[in-house]
């Protein structure tokens, strides 16, 4: 009996050593320790052995059972730890995962954030202003008196004779300069409104305005800062050109074009076959604007610039319809 038990123990431990899979451990356990297991069967026979050695055999059997149980658990941990135990578990890794819900930020705000952060890193302060603005800030202080033909450039929504929906973010310049002595370096995003609605215009859109005023700020500086911005926004190889233009609040004024992102300057429908895309308006702050905020035009000079966010987003993402930004179709929004 005793020998039978010891043989069984050795046989069991040998067998256990060879096991490499957790599921095999289960069947091993059943085979030895289960109700109909080999050890269980042997232990049932202990009662038939002579009474004098019965307690001894019983103790031995219990020790063996404990030893095997312990070995089983050790083996199980070993297999699990080695990672090999699951190799037979078959999962379909192509099933989609349990996804946490994910939302989306509107591309206009993503681009505003990107533009502002580029200028933030250069040392510009992000500032905002009211959407419903006084005629004074939107026009007059910006050298756009009533009856000035340049007011035609921006068809205006009126709330009263002297209150308008701002047609650009430029009034923020004036508000900041009124309150702050130079040096000033600000970047100001916001929604703007123009009484214009067709295939390529929406009555509301977004702009970002920038202003730098200090001693001896030059037109060369304007070129430097805007070139740095464009290279960060559109890639360092992007070709840029500055060309004369007109804005009542800057003199000299410059329109900034980048080489067409679609055709790389060869000429295509997007750039009206010119190879260039207009992306921002800029210029040296007009002395009249400084005068309206009591800045000494002999001591200070500065530059200002403004850009349309939807236009930049359209170029960046290849969106060909500005209306899409305001239709808010989830098929559009979830792409960003």
């Amino acid at each position: 009996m005793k020998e039978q038990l010891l043989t069984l123990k050795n046989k069991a431990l040998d067998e256990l050593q060879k096991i490499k899979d957790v599921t095999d451990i289960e069947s091993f356990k059943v085979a030895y320790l289960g109700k109909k297991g080999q050890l269980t069967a042997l232990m049932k026979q202990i009662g038939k052995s002579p009474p004098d050695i019965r307690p001894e055999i019983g103790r031995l059997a219990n020790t063996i059972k404990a030893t095997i149980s312990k070995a089983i658990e050790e083996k199980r941990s070993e297999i699990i730890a080695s990672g090999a135990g699951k190799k037979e578990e078959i999962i379909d890794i192509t099933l989609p995962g349990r996804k946490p819900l994910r939302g989306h930020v509107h591309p206009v705000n993503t681009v505003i954030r990107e533009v502002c952060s580029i200028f933030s890193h250069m040392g510009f302060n992000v500032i905002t202003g009211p959407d419903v603005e006084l005629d004074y800030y939107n026009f007059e202080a910006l050298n756009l008196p009533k009856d000035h033909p340049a007011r035609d450039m921006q068809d205006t929504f009126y709330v009263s004779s002297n209150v308008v929906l701002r047609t650009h973010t430029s009034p923020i310049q004036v508000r900041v300069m009124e309150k702050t002595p130079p040096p000033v370096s600000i970047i100001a995003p916001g929604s703007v409104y123009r009484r214009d609605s067709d295939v390529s215009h929406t009555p509301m859109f977004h702009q970002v305005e920038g202003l730098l005023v200090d001693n001896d700020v030059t037109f060369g500086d304007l070129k430097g800062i805007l070139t740095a911005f464009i290279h960060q926004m559109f890639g360092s190889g992007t070709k840029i050109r500055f060309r004369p233009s007109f804005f009542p609040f800057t003199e000299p004024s410059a329109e900034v074009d980048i080489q067409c992102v679609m055709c790389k300057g060869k000429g295509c429908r997007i750039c009206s076959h010119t190879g260039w895309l207009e992306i921002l308006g800029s210029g040296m702050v007009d002395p009249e604007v400084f005068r309206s905020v009591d800045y000494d035009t002999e001591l200070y000079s500065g530059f200002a610039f403004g850009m349309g966010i939807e236009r930049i987003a359209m170029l960046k993402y290849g969106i060909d319809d500005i209306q899409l930004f305001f239709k808010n179709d989830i098929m559009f929004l979830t792409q960003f």
Partner: protein
Amino acid sequence: MKISLNWLKEFVDIDMSQEELSHLLTMIGIEVASVMPVACDLDAIIAARILDIKPHPNADCLSLCTIDTGEKQIPVVCGAPNIKKGDIVPLALPGVRLPNGTKIKKGKIRGEVSEGVLLAEDELGLTDDHSGIMILPDASEPGMPITKIISLEDSVLDLELTPNRPDCASVIGIAREIAAATGKTLKRPEPEVNETGPNIEDLTSVTILEREACPRYTAGVVQHIKIGTSPFWMRYRLHLSGIRPVNNIVDVTNYVMLEMGQPLHAFDYDRLEENRIVVKFARQDESFTTLDGQTHNLDQNTLVICDAKQPVALAGIMGGLNSEIYEDTSNILIESAYFDPVIIRRASKRLGISTEASYRFERGADIEGTHIALKRALELISTLAGGSISKGIIDNYPKPYIARPVTLRIDRTNRILGSDLSRETIEGYLKGLNMDVERPDDQNTLVVTPPSFRVDISREADLFEEVARLEGYENIPITIPKIQPATKTDSQEISFGDHIRSVMRGAGFCEVITYSFISPASADMLDIPDSSPLRSFVKILNPLSLDQSVMRTNLIHGLLTVAESNIHRGAAGLKFFELGKVFFHREDNKQPIERMILTAIITGPYQEKTWYCQERMVDFYDIKGALEVFFEGVGIEDFSLAKTDTIPWFDTNISANVSSTGRVVGNIGRLKPDVVKAYNLKNKDFYAFEVDIEALLACIDKNKQFKPFPRFPAVYRDISILVPKGIESAAIVNIIKQHGKDLVESIRIFDLYEGEKIDKAEKAIAFRICYRSKKGTLDGEKINKLHETIIDIIRQETGGKLREG
């Protein structure tokens, strides 16, 4: 503005390609939108002589022509009334494709063979004229391509002019810029007028009653002219510039305006009462019919050109029907005047008439150029319409223009531009722009007198731009300024706004941007009571449509509109938010109050059915959970809900104000079925929350501090309690907190049961309380006691009982 390249070449030599010219103009500030070649596809059209014309046997309005193509004679059927035997006309033979795409085929017209087509100007794509077949010069040889006979090939430059440069609104203006940029000479026109008529003083007079509004009025008279069609070359150029040819007189006035930038007007001399001109303001409510047949109601600020009796033209805008040139006109008076830009602009705006003339006058014409333009017109008229020109012209110009010199400092110029240009270089650029430049002894300055047509130059800064333009913006070196580091914090609207967006995105919401203006009908759709401030809309005086006529006071309208369009395109589960401004009217006519708010809405299934989860429709706890996540994300640690019936669009039963640190910061609830229905979204449950950003910011602890981990172990105890359904879980939570003696660290509701196993009027709520002390390890016995006490108090205060099992 569209101008012909050939016309431009009459005034300046252009020895560069069209691409180079476009680039040159664009880089000096005249943006070339496009260059369109014209008449470049007419090589297959040949001249042909009409040898014979016979009536078509089967059609009264057609004729049968025999045509000499230079090689052979062919029959052609033609419907035009203007041709006669011997005419040389353009012919397209079978196989030729016309500019409009039509391919010519040999065929039979009403039974007669036609082996080609005789062409009118519009069929050749040259003008809009379809009054008859184009007649070519007699000397043309049959068989020659028509492009060899008349100069047709040209290009049209489409230029985008900035409003400060009215001097560029003419062919000569552009030629002048090209000359300045290339160093070529401008070939100024020198009109020659053969004055054969009576003295002008014997024919007419000009009285100016408003000297400020009309500082100069020049006029000439031509008698015995013959009205007719202008020659092809003139009609062609007008057509290329987008101006419709009318008759030789009107065409000349338009042609000179395009060429020299000075708007002109021709009156029928005989229809002017007393044959004279008076310039004055209109009478209030005076009625006047312009030559387009429109009748306008004038006011005292409208400058009018009158005869001895009544207005005959709106000064600088449009002539009147009563003095218009017509077929029998034989004597004409030509006006070439200068009007005050503001007067013209106001009248043009008020009357809603914008013309080529008003465009130029309101930006500023050349006061010194009226007489030259008049002479040019007189010269062309006598060539085109004959007649005799009066001796002399009227030039009513009492206060001649005085040029104002501008002092330009060389060092200042270089300091603004960041350039290093010499005095000589700058002087050269300015002289090239027809400026008069003096050199004072002081080496640093130039005294510059701009020409009269440069109405945009009156200050030193204006000259900086001229110097930069001529130097070329691309030649000004790039520099990087030193920028003082930002010392102020960025606008909360932006920095906090970005944070809010990222939290809401993390919570699974999709951001929308809707227009700030909405329909006033939204107030009814959202069930907003008459007295509510949500109805104090800021109204737009000139909206594009009623739907966009008031500034929004809420974001819920925009979000429901977006939900509606998405649902009708087939979307189901929606989670949208918008972060934007709302506007409230203020009585004092000042700017409105603007507030930034966040609104989120959800509807439909929380998530579509997947292999791992069932579809479940959203309910109140989804929007509340989103609000909780949002608050956690922005750093609001404590907030509470209190039922309210003050949010117009929410169900009174499921509607609450949200408060934090004692102040209301927003609201949350389910939308009323009627409101949902108003948006065409029947049987859909919508939940929303709204948070005021300024109020929220006031609640956020800006000094967020790290909290050390607890040092002692926690003890957990569960209770499940049966309470009437009306008891809110928060009441029980508050009891636990209140009586927990600082030992209750947290409470988690881990089960809620309503159903068959318990009374219908009851619900079972299960709480797991985490007890922990900051001072030491808790004594299990003491905690059991405290726990029992709490349970007792809950029983007493809520009427609840412990749920067994």
